[in-house]
């Protein structure tokens, strides 16, 4: 589905992502996990072409990402960021339907698809005419997700979408989204520093540090066979915060 081939990027002297050759599987949630600055967001931004790689390339369904095809390929990618990345001058409805209107869909098709995605993201229809500033944080995030789902893209890239939410809302959305992704069969790359979130969502985890992938596997594999003392350190640092033991 998604392949990276010796993909790397520096910012000045700092290696944001060391050359990475890997694949992400179709219809799986892959969590890019790690502390701040580990390169997980950089990898995501390289995949959707918001950053140019220094070396290497990204392939999406066998097609190598270039400046010529990036806008077309992005139509097949949903991108969700913290707080939804909503445009403040557009209502929730206009934010969600922006791309459909841009692509010239007939109004009836837009309305039907809107009804579907607000159902998936569990948005009250009577909140659609609100501007982002008058929505709650959770509502903004749901609108951001609905917007990303509008064109029914097979691939979703989520860059710490829930980290600005309060714990209760976050927990509810994690459960909902996990269900949603498996129901829709989306291929998801999910960036977080939250081990608990990874535990709830991930089929596959890439634990990163300083631009390197330290270990890849399920959470159980990471805990049972840590490839590096950092893996244990990272897991233990967050395990203590959890109300129940992770991964049983």
């Amino acid at each position, binding site marked *: 589905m998604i392949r990276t081939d010796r993909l790397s990027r520096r910012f000045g002297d700092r290696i944001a992502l060391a050359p990475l050759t890997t694949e992400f599987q179709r219809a799986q949630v892959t969590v890019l996990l790690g502390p701040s600055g580990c390169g997980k967001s950089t990898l995501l*931004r390289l995949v*959707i*072409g*918001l950053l140019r790689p220094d070396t290497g390339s990204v392939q999406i369904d066998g097609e190598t990402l270039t400046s010529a095809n990036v*806008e*077309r*390929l*992005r*139509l097949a*990618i949903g*991108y969700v*960021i*913290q*707080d939804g*990345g*909503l*445009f*403040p*001058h*557009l209502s929730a409805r206009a934010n969600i339907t*922006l*791309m459909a209107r*841009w692509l010239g869909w007939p109004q009836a098709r837009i309305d039907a698809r809107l009804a579907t995605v607000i159902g998936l993201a569990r948005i009250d229809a009577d909140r659609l005419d609100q*501007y*982002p*500033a*008058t929505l709650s944080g959770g509502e903004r995030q749901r609108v951001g997700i609905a*917007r990303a789902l509008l064109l029914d893209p097979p691939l979703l*890239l989520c860059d710490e979408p829930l980290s600005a939410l309060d714990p209760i809302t976050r927990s509810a959305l994690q459960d909902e989204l996990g269900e949603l992704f498996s129901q829709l069969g989306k291929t998801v790359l999910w960036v977080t520093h939250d081990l608990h979130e990874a535990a709830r969502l991930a089929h596959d985890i890439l634990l990163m540090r300083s631009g390197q992938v330290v270990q890849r596997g399920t959470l159980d594999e990471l805990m049972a066979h840590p490839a590096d003392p950092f893996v244990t350190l990272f897991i233990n640092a967050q395990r203590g915060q959890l109300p129940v033991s992770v991964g049983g």
Partner: protein
Amino acid sequence: MSTTLDGARPTPAVGGPSVPLARVAPGSTSARAHRLALGALLILASLLSPVSTVSGARPDVPTVAGAAPAATNTAATTTVTTNSGSPQLTIGSKRFTESYILAEVARRAASAAGEATVRHEQGLGNTGIVFAALASGAIDVYVEYTGTLAREILRLPDPDDAAALAAGLAAGLKARGLSMSRPLGFNNTYALAMKATVADKLGIARLSDLAARPALRLGLTQEFIGRADGWAGLRRHYALPFGTPRGVDHGIKFTALASNQLDVIDVYSTDAAIERYGLRVLEDDRAYFPRYDAVLLYRADLPARLPRTFAALRALEGRFDDASMRALNARAEVGGESFAQAASAFTIGAGATGQAPVIAAAAAAQRSLYSAVFDADFARLTMEHMVLVFVSLALSIVAGVPLGVWCANSAAARRWVLPAVGLIQTVPSLALLAFLITFYSRIGLVPALTALFLYGLLPIVRNTCAGLEAIPQALRDSGRALGLPRGARLLRIELPLALGSILAGVQTSAVINVGTATIAAFIGAGGYGERIATGLALNDTTVLLAGALPAAALALLVQLGFGTLERWALPAPLRGVRQ
């Protein structure tokens, strides 16, 4: 931007870049920078004028006078016709009463010849601007003074005698494709004057008496301070013990003197205010001031192009004396007559007739501000002003927003475009107008709109650029990640998000334009500035306010209008957000 009158400033050398009221001084500009720029422009104008006159067939420049080839010598081939088929004569005037009146006298005489349609472009500016207009062919003729010509325009060395002066003037003018008539008859020289009561008390009758009185407060017009035959030479000649004198506007210096803010001012010797304010003209006992004989200065092709009109103008030679000129000036300044009415009191046979109708003065002075504001020309001036403001604003938006977008997307553009449009702001408006008159070889609406357009750019370019740059990176990324192409992101996301900032820039530009547009009157483009110019020339506060108040009201309306526009155009979350 300051809006103070020039005379109210502590030092004469401070001039804001675009201060409408400070620019309306007859024969006076607001800053030394203006004079420097104008000096350079005079040279430029004299360099350019042969080009514009020789290249007679310039179909893109419909201005009549300027398109006539100087070298051709038959009237039939050189007469340039307008759409109506009648040849045109354009007479210019400087921005003070006498120049207005003489231009009206000339207009009546030229019209009577029945050969050409005669226009009077009123109050174009000070010497520099009017001469530039003549040199470029935007006007055909205006009244100039020999002393100004010799010292200020041609910068001739002090001549040995009158014959040498005449020869020097003729040669200097010929080189510029210009010529001058014989004197009209009066000598309007510069002079210094004091209140007669104060002069008597201090025992001052002559300029040399001033040397013993270093405590006197001098208030001189900027033009007199700056010109070659003005203050600097006078101070040397009489060894006067004064530093840099205060610069005051021609229109307000008499008021300042009357209210004892000043002790000594410069006047013209035919100034109607001399009697009105009971002034003592100090005797030039060491013969510093040259003669300022009024002459008609005209383009050299005029006699061949419009021979009968020219003959009618020549008939004005020798028809005036100091007293009759002062009487005509008094009709306008004291009697409250229009310039055309005052000019009509002059007839070729009899010179100026009658006394100034002093009784009418009281009536004129008591005319209410209300009736002055809503005079018959109110609708026309309002329309002209609106056209100036909003047409130039539209041009500024059309050019400024794309420039702002370019700046926001290119570091190189930011480095060059922003300083360039900023630099335009620092060009004094009179200097810019003088340059544009030369550039277009015409006066009136086109150079005025161009100047206002250029001044309007900076707020729009800067606010567009700032508004776009202030959009958070996350929102830019969201637009890109959705797959919107660059143009769609700009139109649907970035410009709407920057709209508040852009509107604020447009509003600033519009409000500035309302004020700056008052200068358009000085190059014949009309608007409320006509009243301000006239009011200053006549020292008539009512007329001045009748121009300034509607301009201020219009500025307020524009401000309010933009408030409404913002509420209408901006989605609720963006209102009041101005980066």
